[in-house]
């Protein structure tokens, strides 16, 4: 083949990959194209593998055969979607008549919006691309109505889906009822809520369409955790919660790949809906369906497509930067737990959930980047309802974040002396050998326990948080049985590779604890995985570990010395206390209920006093005292120039006589300026009551 020297020749590889893609899209073989162009099959093969490029006249012919606009081979445009290549492809029912009326993986979880956020973030953390930069998570809630809604529905071929949704919603099963309810609400309110979950600096959905890889793990398979490295099980059970957050089980995905597929990185798109088994127009469908290009080689399957920028825009899936990662658009998002219903509530649930699960992953050491950053924003028809909030670990978990920060900066201490000190302790964990390693011996891992005084006003002090790997919160529980007078605290346990010690035992402990986690990753206990993988005694080792942790926390916060008085028999201890007794609420003597007043022009205090009296047959006789407050020593007294009764009492000289059985009384008084020890304006006045002998009776 000759080189024509025009645009194509500059990048033969890219042209070849493009041509290969177009052939696959059309379902055309290399020999089909060779026949149509009147060239040999070997020539077509050479173009596709990039060994040669066709002449310009052949290129024009190729564009014509492939139904493409003239020049698209130069610009490498993909097939315009308006030509109807992208559509829903439904999986036909199993030939054995088996019916799936719901997604078992979704039922394995307590579903809630917070758990969706947790699983999505965990998956993204496991797929971190550049280890020196954080994975950035963005959660965007967007409620759309009117034309925005219609335009999105057109973009996702909603009208083609509706008959299927109605058919599936007709069933009496749990999933069916949820679908019917979702459709009903959408029609009634004309509102659709979208939840978009983006990660940046993650690997993206790389790999082939069907074979092993991240793409297939997320889009094609159930219960495939595609486990690698420190993963807590990336894209295993957890991804079901992403689909579970949609009322329709409908999620559209746009991924920017870290590793090119078919020579392309940006805007790899696919949609998936998880419906239960249903029957429509006499055809039985298994349930799941994919939005994408028809795959001529596979019945009822769809391939991902490379979308144009406009399509991505219409799907609200335009990514904020070229950084690799994936954006999930959850169509018809809701909180399955029913906890949050408004945009504001959902925003709060997401922020709180992310803060409590990932605060530790968001903390970075001095001069370092954190593992993850996350933000949440809520919009209604393009208008901001709740501004984007970046989840700040120091705001939501001040004491714990301080503990992890001190650990990362190596500023921990061995004994608490300051309110912001962090004590670092080492907790042994004996990791038993796996059953498959015959004759292997247990390894000892040293986990890191951090204890710090709780922040002021902490509503839930005295708790222990456990984590490993990417420092996601695994458990958060109270520490009980604390010695009396213990410091209020927060404790954090870092186990496995979260200890940053980079010892072989850390990896062993990491795997051991991962096996001890149930699918929800919220505890370390004797799971089936643990007992089937590890040698006898694994459960006991775990129990020992836990017991040691709690004991070490207790001893770290115990008061400096036991509160004990030597010598005194315990029976006498209570009887020899000199602590003041709290005064009763209702007092047996008259009290000043309220005293108000100011200094007048002449410098005299004008005071009005309300008195509360215990009810008594014998009338009270009281002498009001006006004194000037001092820091210490006797308080100088001032005389009254004038005393007058306002209610329930009468004045007799310098005493007040109260009526029998009266419960309250009011009097007013003016001080005698001549008796002031200092100018009235310069001192604080006090009013007190003294019982007096009634001179008149």
């Amino acid at each position: 083949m000759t080189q024509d020297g025009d645009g194509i020749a500059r990048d033969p590889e890219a042209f070849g990959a493009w041509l290969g893609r177009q052939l696959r899209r059309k379902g055309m073989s290399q020999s089909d194209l060779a026949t149509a162009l009147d060239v040999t099959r070997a020539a077509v093969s050479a173009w596709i593998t990039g060994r040669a490029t066709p002449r310009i006249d052949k290129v024009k012919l190729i564009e014509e055969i492939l139904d493409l606009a003239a020049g698209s081979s130069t610009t490498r445009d993909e097939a315009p979607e308006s030509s109807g290549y992208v559509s829903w492809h439904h999986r036909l029912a199993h030939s054995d008549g088996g019916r799936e009326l719901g997604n078992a993986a979704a039922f394995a979880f307590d579903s809630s919006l917070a758990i969706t956020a947790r699983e999505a973030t965990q998956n993204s953390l496991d797929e971190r691309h550049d280890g020196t930069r954080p994975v950035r998570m963005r959660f965007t809630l967007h409620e759309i109505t009117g034309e925005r809604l219609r335009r999105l529905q057109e973009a996702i071929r909603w009208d083609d889906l509706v008959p299927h949704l109605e058919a599936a919603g007709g069933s009496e099963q749990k999933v069916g009822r949820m679908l019917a309810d979702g459709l009903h609400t959408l029609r009634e309110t004309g509102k659709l809520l979208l939840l978009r979950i983006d990660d940046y600096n993650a690997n993206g959905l790389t790999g082939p369409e069907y074979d092993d890889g991240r793409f297939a793990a997320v889009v094609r398979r159930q219960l495939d955790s595609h486990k690698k490295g420190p993963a807590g099980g990336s894209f295993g059970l957890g991804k079901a919660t992403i689909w579970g957050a949609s009322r329709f089980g409908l999620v559209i995905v746009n991924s920017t790949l870290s590793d090119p597929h078919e020579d392309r990185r940006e805007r790899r798109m696919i949609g998936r809906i998880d419906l239960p088994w249903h029957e429509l127009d006499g055809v039985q469908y298994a349930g799941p369906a994919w939005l994408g290009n028809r795959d001529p080689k596979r019945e009822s399957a769809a391939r991902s497509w490379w979308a144009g920028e406009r399509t991505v825009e219409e799907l609200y899936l335009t990514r904020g930067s070229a950084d690799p990662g994936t954006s999930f658009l959850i169509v018809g998002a809701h909180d399955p737990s029913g906890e949050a219903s408004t945009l504001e509530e959902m925003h709060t649930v997401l922020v709180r959930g992310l803060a409590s699960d990932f605060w530790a992953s968001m903390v970075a050491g001095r001069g370092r980047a954190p593992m993850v950053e996350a933000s949440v924003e809520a919009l209604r028809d393009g208008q901001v309802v709740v501004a984007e909030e970046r989840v700040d670990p120091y705001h939501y978990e001040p004491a714990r974040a301080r503990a992890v920060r001190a650990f990362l900066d190596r500023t921990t201490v061995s004994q608490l002396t300051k309110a912001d000190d962090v004590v670092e302790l080492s907790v042994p964990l004996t990791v038993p050998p796996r059953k498959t390693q015959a004759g292997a011996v247990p390894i000892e891992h040293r986990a890191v326990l951090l204890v710090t005084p709780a922040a002021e006003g902490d509503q839930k002090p005295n708790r222990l948080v456990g984590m490993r790997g990417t420092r996601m919160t695994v458990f958060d529980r109270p520490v009980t049985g604390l010695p009396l007078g213990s410091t209020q605290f927060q404790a954090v346990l870092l186990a496995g590779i979260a200890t940053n010690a980079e010892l072989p035992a850390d990896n062993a402990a990491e795997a051991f604890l991962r096996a001890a986690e149930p699918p929800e990753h919220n505890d370390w206990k004797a799971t089936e995985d643990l007992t089937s993988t590890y040698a006898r005694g694994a459960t006991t080792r775990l129990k020992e570990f836990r017991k040691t942790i709690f004991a070490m926390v207790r001893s770290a916060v115990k008061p400096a010395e036991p509160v004990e008085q030597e010598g005194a028999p315990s029976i006498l201890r209570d009887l020899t206390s000199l602590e003041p007794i709290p005064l009763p609420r209702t007092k047996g003597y008259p009290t000043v209920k309220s005293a108000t007043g100011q200094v007048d022009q002449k410098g005299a205090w004008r005071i009005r006093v309300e008195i509360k009296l215990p009810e008594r047959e014998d009338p009270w006789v009281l002498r009001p005292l006006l004194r000037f407050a001092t820091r210490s020593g006797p308080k100088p007294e001032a005389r009254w120039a004038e005393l007058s009764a306002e209610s329930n009492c009468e004045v007799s000289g310098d005493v007040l006589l109260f009526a029998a059985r009266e419960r309250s009384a009011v009097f007013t008084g003016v001080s005698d300026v001549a008796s002031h020890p200092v100018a009235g304006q310069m001192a604080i006045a006090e009013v007190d009551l003294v019982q007096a002998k009634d001179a008149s009776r």
Partner: protein
Amino acid sequence: MKQIMPYPVLVGEVTMTVHEVRLDDVALPYGMISEPDHTVALHLLDREDWNVVRLMLHVIAPRHELDTGPWFSLAFLATASERRTNMHSAVKLMMRQPGEWTGEMELHRDDHFGRVQVSGQLVATVDDVPGRVIAAVGQPWTVDLQARGATQRESIQTRWVNFAQDPELVWCKSDPWMVSTTDEAAVLNLNSGFDGLRAVLESPKAAERPIREALAAQIAVDMWTALFNEAAHRVGSREWPEGWRGLVLQRMLPDLFPDHSLDDALREIVNRGVGGIQTRVLHAAAKQARMPRSLGGFIRSLEKTLPEDE
């Protein structure tokens, strides 16, 4: 007693925290600082020779109210005072940002003896008068130089002594217990030379509990009566006596004069004289000793054992 201010003062609360304590530059374990009790327990074992305690203080006042109020030239003064030694000192804290002050307060070993109250006042220029107090710390801190744990409370010291071998107590060597007092402390001496006293008081047997409690109540009645009279004799004017005497009076006066306020009840002692109130003292001492309850339990226990004896 109610106070009336001749100028506007702050309504919101001013809170103070002790962030760190250093004893001659050595940081104290945080367990000796009790945030809930607002107490710092300073007494370190084997460490009598220290000179200076330095408290790191942090004060917060309601910023919004300060911004909108009629106060100018705000300053915060932290104060330390001890009634026992009549020592008062103040130090000005630095304003970190509006409504927030931090600083250090030093307590010198020579100036203090027991419990030092650490508090503070917010002062400002009001109506062109500088330095007026517009707020005080709501819950002051106590630095206890004697206590070993941050939660220890004030109480009367109790000790076992063999009266026959103690030169101060040998004159009453046949007595089971005796109260001795100094200005600093009131001590309850239990005679370890008195046969069986210790065995009964410290017996762990549940069956002997009624006897133990009745005996303890009897000791307590004697002790409180003696202490009250000792303290009441020191009351000359309307001033409360210092130390344990004031505390004893404060505990017992509400039982002596239930229809008088504490200050007013103190006046009654002066008015009537110690001799005129003895019957009331007996009543208040029995109440401190929880005599009715203990004796009731003892009598009930006798009823149970009597039939067996027959």
